[in-house]
């Protein structure tokens, strides 16, 4: 039998169940099997007084019981050490690993696809220089180094060994005591929980440790401990807190982080943000949901937990063994589906079902949750997994690119920015439901902002804006609006000292939009020319801003 099975139920049921499981688990019992069951039942129940069996399972029931593979058991490993407090107190202790994330013992090895022999697969590691030919060098010609920021520092193994941090071996010494509230549960790091007991058959140790455990319990305090497993391992700082049970009492040790491990992230407060605050109604809906989804039954005296995770077998192992078991006998068939029994264990307990659905509906009504369709993960996954098929990727990429451009151009621009105002403007104007005047006002706002700086670069930017605006206004049948804006600009030239900018407008002959250009304009060609010409005279008289312009030019050239 390749797998250890849970044999907690009927003795010879194991083989029978095994047989049935292999064939078809949900078959109706045959007459013969029923007869057999009656026999077994009789035999088993007759043992009642002696063996204390009070239950007899049908094959189906035992199948379900037995389809849970036995949990991985490991022998407890003792870790004898001394607990020290300052230099005065030393207590002989023994530690055990009480909890750790259990991993599958065996790992997968690679075998040749044809011969299925692992001997045929060999691995070799070579070193090569970072040049064009990737010149190989032998391992003997390499030395060890470390990065120190951008520098690489050769640091031989021997030197490293000599200079490294050294410990004096095993250690469990108390650095101090702190209030329990200061050691938060989410600080815990490392991969294990140790339970620390007094050494066996050592009365002094037992009394001293017990005194410490009770002292900590009564003061609601914890010990901060320096822990070293052995000579070769790194020191840890951790917490030891008391645990008192009916049968035993001990200290529980869990590692705590070092300063280097902490990352101080700041998150926006949820209280004052506009999208974070929930209404009273919403809050009470959540309140109701929490009540209806309670996983405990409180009958006033005892609290019964309906969903004890620590009683659930690791589904990974269950599934792995199920598949291995299946494949051992049917190597060519595809993997079987996940055992429904296992699925049930991972789901919400049945006891809950009825009541919470209503509260969930209420929640659905009160909160607007909208999928924005930005499932980044999926897109990336697509690209990775289709990487082999270049053609498909190419076509896919093409599509996503298009998509991106569309969103970039239309989806993301919501206002005229200062970086590419002309482009933003154009995008916005072309959106179906845009308001031309509003967007144009935004654009002009930017233009006036730029003009305040009086810098050649910003003048050019402003020119582009005005040109685009003129073009779009003509198309949109908003010529009058544009003409009005241009007149306002002209009126402001004097007041804001923008003569040199106006000169640019004249140079590029950005006139009012005329009747010839757009039907909705009331301006004729002469009027348009007049509009620009009229300002030419005062321009000449103001020579001062031109010097200003020079300074700006210099700046520009830098």
């Amino acid at each position, binding site marked *: 039998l390749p797998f250890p099975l849970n044999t907690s139920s009927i003795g010879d049921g194991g083989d029978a169940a095994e047989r049935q499981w292999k064939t078809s688990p949900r078959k109706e019992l045959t007459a013969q099997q029923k007869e057999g069951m009656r026999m077994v039942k009789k035999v088993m129940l007759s043992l009642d007084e002696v063996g204390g069996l009070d239950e007899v399972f049908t094959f189906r029931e035992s199948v379900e019981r037995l389809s849970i593979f036995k949990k991985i058991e490991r022998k407890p490993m003792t870790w004898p050490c001394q607990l020290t407090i300052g230099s005065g107190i030393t207590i002989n202790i023994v530690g055990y690993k009480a909890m750790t994330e259990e991993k599958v013992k065996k790992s997968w090895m690679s075998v040749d696809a044809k011969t299925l022999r692992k001997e045929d697969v060999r691995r070799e590691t070579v070193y090569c220089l970072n040049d064009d030919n990737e010149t190989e060098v032998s391992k003997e010609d390499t030395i060890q180094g470390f990065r120190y920021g951008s520098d690489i520092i050769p640091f031989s193994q021997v030197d490293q060994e000599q200079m490294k941090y050294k410990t004096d071996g095993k250690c469990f010494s108390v650095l101090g005591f702190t209030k329990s509230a200061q050691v938060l549960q989410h600080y815990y790091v490392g991969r294990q929980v140790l339970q620390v007991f007094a050494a066996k058959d050592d009365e002094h140790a037992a*009394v001293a440790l017990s005194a410490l455990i009770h002292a900590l319990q009564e003061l609601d305090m914890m010990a901060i401990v320096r822990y070293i497993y052995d000579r070769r391992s790194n020191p840890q700082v951790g917490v030891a807190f008391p645990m008192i049970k009916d049968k035993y009492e001990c200290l529980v040790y869990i590692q705590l982080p070092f300063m280097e491990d902490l990352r101080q992230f700041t998150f926006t407060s949820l209280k004052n943000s506009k999208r974070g605050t929930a209404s009273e109604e919403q809050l009470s809906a959540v309140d109701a949901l929490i009540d209806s989804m309670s996983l405990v039954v409180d009958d006033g005296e005892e609290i019964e937990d309906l969903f004890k995770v620590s009683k659930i077998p690791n589904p990974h192992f269950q599934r792995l063994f199920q598949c291995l078991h299946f494949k051992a006998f049917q190597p060519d068939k595809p993997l079987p589906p996940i055992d429904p029994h296992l699925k049930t264990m991972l789901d919400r307990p049945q006891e809950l079902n009825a009541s919470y659905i209503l509260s969930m509906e209420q929640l659905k009504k009160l909160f607007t949750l909208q999928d924005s369709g930005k499932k980044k993960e999926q897109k990336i996954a697509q690209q990775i997994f289709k990487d082999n098929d270049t053609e498909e990727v190419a076509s896919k990429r093409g599509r996503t690119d298009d998509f991106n451009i569309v969103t970039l151009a239309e989806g993301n621009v919501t206002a005229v920015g200062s970086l590419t105002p002309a482009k933003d403007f154009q995008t916005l104007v072309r959106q179906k439901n845009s308001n031309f005047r509003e967007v144009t006002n935004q654009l002009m706002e930017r233009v006036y902002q730029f003009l305040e700086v009086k810098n050649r670069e910003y003048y050019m930017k402003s020119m582009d804006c005005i040109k685009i605006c003129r073009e779009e206004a003509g198309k949109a049948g908003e010529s009058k609006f544009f003409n009005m804006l241009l007149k306002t600009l002209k009126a402001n030239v004097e007041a804001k000292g923008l003569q040199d900018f106006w000169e640019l407008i004249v140079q590029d002959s950005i006139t009012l939009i005329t009747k010839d250009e757009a039907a909705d304009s009331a301006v004729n060609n002469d009027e348009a020319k007049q509009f620009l010409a009229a300002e030419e005279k005062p321009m000449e008289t103001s020579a001062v801003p031109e010097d200003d312009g020079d300074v700006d030019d210099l700046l520009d050239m830098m």
Partner: protein
Amino acid sequence: MADWHAHFQNEDEEDPEEAEDNEEDIRYAGRDSLIFLIDASEAMFEMNNEDTSAFDMTIQCVHRVYTSKIISSERDLLAVVFFGTQKHKNSVDFKHVYVLHDLDTPGAKRVLELDQFEGEKGKRSFKDQIGHSTDGSLADALWVCSNLFSDVRLKLSHKRIMLFTNNDNPHAKDSSKARMARTKASDLRETGIILDLMHLRKPGGFDTSLFYRDIVSVTEDEDGAAQGRESAKLDDLLRKVWARDYKKKATTRLNLKLGEGVELSVGVYNLIRSARKPTAIRLYRETNEPVKTKTRWFNGETGSLLLPSDTKKAQVYGRRQIVLEKEEIEELMRFDAPGLVLIGFKPLSLLKKHHYIRTSQFIYPEETMITGSSTLFSALLTKCLEKEVFAVARYIPRRNTPPRFVALVPQGEQLDDEQVQTIPPGFHLMFLPYADDKRKVDFTEKTVANEDQTEKMKQVVQKLRFKYRPESFENPVIQKHFRNLEALALDLKEPEEMEDLTRSAAGGAEKKPKLMESMGTDEIRQHVQGGTLGKLTVPVLKEVCKQYGLKGGGKKQELIDAITGHFTEH
């Protein structure tokens, strides 16, 4: 070749899950970059009542950031730019802007270069080498910074400028310069460069509304409140810099499904991640250049190279070899799509302290995937806190990963006196053990101490009482390693002494006062004469210096020199 590595990655001895947990999607993120833009006008060099200048504090702060970046994130790019200087050095020849370091990863040489501007000596050398001026323009400085960003060839994911100054109205008399600075600042914003103000204490108080309010970025992601008060002490400043610099990168983003049709999206963050000693790299003996490592798979018999498709995976049970396709291995790990599925709620009292298997994570709402997530999240958080319950959820962090159960433990936001967030709002995601994770323990029979004995122990406990803070312990192994490297890199004779906090720290609270008391003049003199000052720890030496009003700097040798100097004179 790259595909190959990716494929066989999991063959390594190390725990693949752990590795994945620590990886933060480096592939898609570019480098992070940070420019320290430091005001070098004379006001920055004036001594304040703490006996340092704002400039000195800034340089110390930058120094700390440099060395810690070397340890924790050596891929990040850092730069230092002074403005308001006499001399100038930058790619566009702007006056009064001096680029000390352009954007690059920090190294030993740069740390040394910074060192020369520290302290009293640094003030003088700055004056001689670079000098001060009042004619600088902030717009020019920002321009230079944006050039620094654009000169970098690498893809940058995070661009940030931290502006250190104690002048709240730099262009009070020149409105056009002020305007240009504002425009340039808004240009930076448009290109995704974040500009932070690290304002320093000045006499009369720093008034951000005079000028800087329009300059600095307030992204929707950050609190206006966090801009907060001016920093007077190095610790405050450092805390502010760290809080800003830590770019929150979600390890993953996924949906939290409460029930049929009710899903919200959250980002999952690692608030604690074990810093490890970096792994060694192989160098070519002749040139000290790094070599590449290539791993090849080949057929042992024919010697021909094997492609990933030429192999399958197998395990042996009993004497039978069971062979699976690689796809099948993925399939058997697949239970459901990645995400969190709510099971129900339990009172916080049922959360067991000793049920621990791995470091917890943290979740915070994410609006980009499902809009409206924040509201529901915040309602859940409020109610869980109020009703003192935690949620139990089934958690699948990545594709093809078996589920684990987690406790979602609510945490309310907390602010310190200066309205700076010390504890963020959200849920801690604590992993719950399965039946397999619990081990049998061969416990020792119970022997209970009597009351007397317990009382005595209580006295011991009270005596050694201190306040635990997770940041109080440095990892001695990592610190020692980097000090060794530093010594080699900077050609120091001996690595800088390190105080091993795991040996003394907590007791330190108890021991320190004792040590101070016992350090009488005679005793110090004895140490000086015997040349044994080196045996004392840095804090003790500092205390002695304070006692006699000596200035010794931060290094141990400097302290010793100062004390020796004092006692040989007197």
